[in-house]
């Protein structure tokens, strides 16, 4: 199987990160792993975009970060959802639904309502 799978579409990465963090604080590595798992290995995240995205989101106060110790006793930076991030996630979700529905309809891949 191609390890790389589908590259995440630009702009949706932040949304995916927010969704992952909705479940609780996680470090950068964990976020890539979770995205891959939740997408049934269809999506993989390029580290080159992951970390800049995370820092950007910290700056926009969508997420906060702090150093914590993992269950294996390693120091790692954990990111967690900030209130602004929660709102952003909600807004992003509905926007995405509309967008993907629209795209599906145009491409003719949508299952027509019976």
């Amino acid at each position, binding site marked *: 199987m191609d*390890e790389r799978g589908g590259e995440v579409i630009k702009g949706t990465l932040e949304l995916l990160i927010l969704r992952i963090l909705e479940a609780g604080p996680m*470090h*950068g*590595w*964990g976020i*890539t*792993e979770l995205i891959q798992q939740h997408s049934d290995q269809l999506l993989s995240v*390029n*580290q*080159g975009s992951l*970390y*800049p995205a995370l*820092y*950007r989101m*910290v*700056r926009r106060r969508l997420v906060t970060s702090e150093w914590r110790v993992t269950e294996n006793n*390693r*120091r*790692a*930076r954990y990111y967690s959802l900030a209130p602004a991030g929660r709102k952003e996630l909600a807004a992003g979700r509905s926007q995405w639904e509309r967008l993907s529905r629209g795209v599906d309809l145009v491409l003719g891949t949508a299952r027509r309502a019976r």
Partner: protein
Amino acid sequence: MIRWLGDRLARIAASLRRGRVDAEVSEEFRFHLDQATERYIRRGLPPAEARRRALDDFGALPEHRERAADEQRHRRLEAVFDDVRFGTRALRSSPRFAATLGLTIALAIGANSAIFSVIDGVLLKPLPLPDPDRLAFVGWDHGGGRVIHAVSPFQLHFIGERAGTIEAIGTYRTRSWSRGERDAPETVRAAAVSHGLLGAVGVPVRLGRAFAEEEYRSGDDVVMVSDAYWRARLGGDPEVIGRTLRFEGESRTVVGVLDPRFQIPGQGEPAEVLAPLAIEPNRQDGQNLNALIRARAGVSRSAVQAELERLSQRFRVENPDLVDGGDPTAPPRFVLATFQDVFVGDLRTTLWILFGAIGFVTLIGCANAANLLIARGLARERELAVRTALGAGRGRILQQLVIESLLVSLAAGAVGLLLARVGIDALLALAPGALPREGEIALDGRVLGFTAALSVAVGVLFGAINALAGTKRGLLATLGRTGRGGSERRRGRETLIVAQVAIALVLVVSAALLVQSFARLRAVDPGFDPEGVVAIRLGRLPSTIRGEKLVALERRVVEALGRRPGMVAAAAAANFPFERGLNFPISIAGRDEVGEGAVEWRTVSPGYFETLSVPLLRGRTFAATDDPRAPRVAIVSAAFAERYWPGEDPIGKRIEIGRWRGEWMRPAFEGGEEVIGVVADVREIGLASPARRTVYTPRAQWSDGLDWPRFLARGPADPSLVAELGAVLGAIDDRIPPPSLETMPAILSASIATERFRTALISSFALAALLLTAVGVYGVVAALVGQRTREIGIRMALGAPAATVLRLVVGRGLGLVAVGCVLGGVGAIGLTRLLRGMLFGVGPDDPVAHVGALGILMAVAALATWLPARRATRVNPVETLGAE
């Protein structure tokens, strides 16, 4: 402005943090890589392969790091911006607090910058000439550290001929010349420069050429002009070379124009015209030439000094007669001296002490500033606690507080610069005569840099004090408390008070010593009565008025003065008292003994002692009959008589002016003089110096080579005097400019200007320290009363008399003051030693000054304690207890 400064600062702070940000980012990446590697290992890959795959996945590492770090840095920067914004808002919301704080610091910084600019201009800045480190002066150590920073023509020539490490050695004499024709003469600052001076100064000629070798020997018909003079007076004429100008009624040809940078170190006002100066290589007297040298390129100072040591050895061997006996273990020798050694001298210590003193005042000011901040910190404790609870780390709080105080201190620094400008002008106005290199004292880049550095240091210092006093015990602890909390803070403030009192005491003791010393100096009897004496200085006299003609002119002026109503007496003299006179070798007829060689020699006209009210002890004073036809006579001072004829009557004894080691220095001196009178000692060269042994001779008998006269008259200093004397002089020769008028008390006052300068400055610093300390003590005690209002109320409700309450509060306040006094007292005993050289008639450990200063400080501190304490006794128990 504040925002701009904040931004700058934030940027600087961010770049300082760059290292840490990078470290955090790479730690995060390492974690990521490790996790990825582990995953591959779990899938069965060998560790090395797993690592490689993980790295492959990760992509170009440095690039990630760069991008990630950029993001990170951005974030930190924003935090700094936030703090700057927040700080600005916080300060704007309490403008009175911000203004008080800012002004305190601005004053401190301004005073520091002003003093620093003087120190920098006078002491620190290198001379504005090429390769200033190769410049030095040569002096002569008589042995045992008696150094004069000057050499004789013979010595100058000796060094110039032999020294291999020296590229050029030169000297100069300052002159005042008149230029132009009879009708409109102008006065020109001129300098006669010896062969070698231009080379030693080391700037090229701008136009034309320098003096030629032979012109230094013969030529008094050539001049060079300064760039400024060329531009202002000669119209910047490019064809000026070869033009003839008239100076002193004689024609001289311009051969060169100097570079704008040209200046002779040590000359106050730069010379406008240079003429060649011939050095008579065999003249062994007149050891009063400043010898400027330029070392050869690449030759170290110590190499030059080493060669001078060798030359000193040769000089002693070749000229045993010129070397005083002295101490054989410390023979006389040539020494190298810096510009500061030669021209700044004692002032150097004064300036550093002023700098130290103002530093002390600044510390006290900062303590007050920190106190203000801490007091405000009390009010903000809850705000800070909330921020802590919301997740701000200690570092973040510290950063915020430091940025806040930096905002204040940088703004204060800017205001301080304005104050410094005013301060510099005030200092220069107060400074004695001319500080050397006065023109270089200015608010330049160096002072700007100093001010900026000081502002940042002050801001960080008290910001940190404040923050540490606040965050020490964990602000969370204070969240739960409703009380006014913070015994930490109180202890911080109390420590500051102790320090303030200690420092203030040192300053007040210093001021007390200087004031006492100054009072003693003023009380010194100068040996004559300066009150009511007018001093008249003449402008430049035409060179044709010399010898007999000059004596005649003097007589006319003295007569004119005597005719004026109210004038009691008048006389001419070569120098006013407190101006240096001639230092001249004089022998006693019939004795081989050389004595100390030189004594003070002053030529005066009849009426001199009467005008100054110098008491005549024996014999008679000069009369009009003591003229060139009469036998030469002299009057000696009591100190002179006591030294050479102890217990004898000096009247009728003979002295020999200009006879040195058995030789007459010039044929004109031959003959000797009869002592006809003894007058009381006069402190001719300054109140602080004991009277020198002095010989007076009548001007009429020494008309050859007579110095220009000054005039003294006892009577009213009426401005109409100038016009009248101007008319008398004009009738003699219309080229003589009108005279200028001074008074003897003013001259006396100017002679102690240095002492007045430092006494006034240190006293005002001490006063400032005292006031600042009083404010500090007041603030702390007032806070104490405020904190304990409840307790005091309870005590009073339980029947404690007002006196007990007063004792409670005052006791605490004065306890702190006492601790400060003990520390300050010890410090004062140690530090006032530095003042030793500046004190006259009082020792650095003078008990009156120390105890008196202690008394003053205690009194002020007691008042500052008592005022708020009194409020405590007015506490109404019922109100206070009901209040909470």
